[in-house]
């Protein structure tokens, strides 16, 4: 009885306390650090451990950790920006960081990196360069991935193919050979610019190097789009390629009825849990023809509105240090772009899970052939324009020539707008 009353009292007390608004962290103290991450709450034990270590090195620091899932993080962060209370550190995926940098939301990290060349030297230079906007570095790599090709070896064998494709034409002819009945030959993820290697391997680039003019409306560009459209129409390419985002393409490939999938490394771990056919013998892992790939990486940035930028920078240095990065790579089985960590971790993984190691190895090789990472402040606008016309072409509503001409016009207008 007494116990129950205590429980009730406690519950009432907690409830009452919860009714009172908590003070915003920004309005109190100066030794607070607030960190917003992108959907990695599963790493909570590790993060808690990092915070404890960091706090012991920096006494008196309080850390607030926020984690939001992908589609909602931008809404949350921008609301906080508008309210003038941005988290000090934010974990951003893909090109979004550059857009926010262009808006003036993020702190230029170049001076810090210049002052501490040792920190700069930690990272794979190509991945670090991913987030250079107008000559300034706004983010440092947190964990990185880029696209590669998975293929279904039994399906390949049944179609009489026993090696990975070396060109787009290979991809399309293998796809055709594999497809039939309810099988399709090829699938690609399409969010961000993940489909762009299909064009790049044909020598088609989106923009001029100075990012001022579109360059995709060329005979090669039209031809490539045409080929993809035809292959989609005849069932070689699975239509989910052009509409699905993450769950369906991976699910479809895992179901075992698709010959190839163009995706980034994390797809492997998803597919593996969903497809009973997947063993080291049955899944093929290959670089994209021409070694082209699109990065899909996470970086750390510091908000310009951060109350304690030095503290935030100290934390970033801490979190990307070898020991921490290694724990993180182990915890999530990924590459961090900390060159030393990735090398050691892959060596370790080779022993435990060679297939996973093979997948991850592709992520740190040929990093000079990254494509689809244009340093634009309006990358998503350009992406949306081009993608809509690509969908029109691939799904057979418009012919490649007029659609690409339209896309070119719209991209030119968008580039002029900013």
């Amino acid at each position, binding site marked *: 009885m007494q116990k129950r009353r205590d429980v009730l009292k406690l519950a009432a007390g907690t409830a009452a306390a919860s009714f009172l608004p908590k003070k915003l962290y920004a309005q109190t103290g100066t030794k607070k650090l607030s960190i917003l991450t992108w959907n990695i709450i599963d790493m909570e034990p590790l993060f808690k451990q990092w915070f404890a270590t960091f706090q012991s090195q920096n006494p008196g620091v309080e850390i607030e950790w926020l984690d939001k899932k992908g589609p909602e993080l931008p809404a949350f962060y921008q609301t906080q920006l508008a309210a003038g209370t941005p988290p000090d550190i934010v974990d951003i995926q893909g090109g979004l960081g550059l857009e926010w940098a262009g*808006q*003036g939301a993020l702190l230029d990290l170049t001076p810090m990196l210049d002052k501490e060349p040792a920190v700069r030297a930690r990272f794979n230079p190509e991945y670090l360069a991913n987030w250079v906007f107008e000559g300034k570095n706004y983010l440092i790599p947190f964990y990185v991935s880029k696209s590669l090709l998975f293929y279904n070896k039994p399906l390949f064998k049944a179609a009489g193919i026993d090696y990975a494709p070396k060109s787009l034409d290979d991809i399309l002819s293998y796809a055709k050979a594999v497809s039939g009945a309810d099988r399709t030959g090829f699938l690609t993820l399409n969010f961000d610019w993940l489909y762009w290697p299909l064009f790049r391997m044909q020598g088609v680039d989106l923009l001029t190097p100075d990012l001022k003019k579109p360059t995709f409306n060329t005979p090669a560009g039209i031809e490539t789009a045409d080929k993809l459209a035809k292959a989609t129409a005849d069932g070689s390419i699975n*239509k989910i390629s052009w509409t699905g985002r993450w769950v369906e393409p991976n699910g479809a490939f895992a179901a075992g009825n698709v010959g190839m999938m163009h995706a980034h490394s994390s797809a492997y771990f998803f597919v593996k849990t969903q497809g009973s056919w997947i063993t080291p013998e049955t899944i093929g892992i290959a670089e994209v023809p021409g070694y082209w790939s699109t990065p899909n990486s996470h970086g750390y940035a510091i908000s310009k509105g951060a109350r304690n930028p030095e503290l935030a920078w100290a934390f970033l240095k801490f979190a990307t240090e070898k020991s921490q990065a290694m724990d993180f790579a182990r915890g999530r089985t990924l590459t961090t772009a900390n060159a030393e960590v990735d090398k050691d971790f892959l060596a370790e993984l080779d022993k435990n899970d060679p297939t996973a190691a093979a997948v991850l190895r592709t992520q740190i090789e040929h990093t000079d052939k990254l494509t689809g990472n244009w340093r634009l402040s309006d990358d998503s606008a350009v992406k949306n324009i081009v993608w*809509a016309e690509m969908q029109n072409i691939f799904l057979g509503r418009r012919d490649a020539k007029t659609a690409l001409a339209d896309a070119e016009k719209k991209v030119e207008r968008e580039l002029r707008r900013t």
Partner: protein
Amino acid sequence: MNTAPPQRAGVAGSADAVAPPVRAADWYRRKRTREAMLVACFLLPSLMIFFLYRILPLGWNVILSFEYWSPLKAARFAGLDNYAEMFLEDDVFWQALTNTLIFILASPIAILLALAVALAVNSDLKGAAIYRTIIFLSYPLMSVAVGIVWRWLYDERGGFINFVLRGTGLIKEPIPFLQSFGWALPSVILADIWQVVGFYMIILLTGLQSIPQHLYEAARIDGAPASARFLRITLPMLRPSLFICAVIGILNSFTAFDLVYVMTGGGPAHATELLVTHIYNMGFGETRFDYAAALTVVQFTLLVILTFLANRAVGGNAGSVESA
């Protein structure tokens, strides 16, 4: 005979002795003021909430729509630039506008369906409560999950609908519902109807249950057949509920946001883009809150006009039962 002696203002000998008072108007005015105060008090809490979370944000959007603004840049006056861009250059806007209108115009189908169901389960049918529960069941589902399930149902290869259609020999080749420009929007609309039909049903049931039974009794005494009772009593008395349904249908063009976002993301090539998904993409996707604000203002204006028309269509007075 009376419990208290009347307060006599003066015993009048005849009708003439009672002079018509002129002050009556004053008393009525005070009385009306008192009633108005009461009405105001009753409305106040709701009005406060709407003011804070609806009207202020609307004003914010209106102001923003005439500016260049982002969370970190000082606002600059933009005149009609955002609107000019929308009407003259933004193809997606026009597509989204068309789709939004189609989405709204499809709502009568769902309302009729719900009306049929509501009439059926409001009768003496045994097990009506079970039917009612089942049909309502889809509404409390989280839209995100609904979107994921329907995305699967519509899947070209592994989806249930194609599986059934092919299994029964109705079609030979699977239909890529969500990958086809023709099918995508109707498919999303169907999924949406599936989810909201229970909502409509609840509103219509409330309306049906509020109709005083004596109206039917009187009609039965007058010998009105069932069809006449429906047309003369049920339908007119349901007008307020039907109006609410019509408004929900209009609202649905943006409450279906989650569903569209999950099922198609507005694609392929904006074939299922609604104004609200466009607004969200422009705001939080492309960080163009100023432009998104202009879109919001235009959508708002459009919906106000549609609501006004819906109000006219069900007989005006915001869905009130007309009283003499």
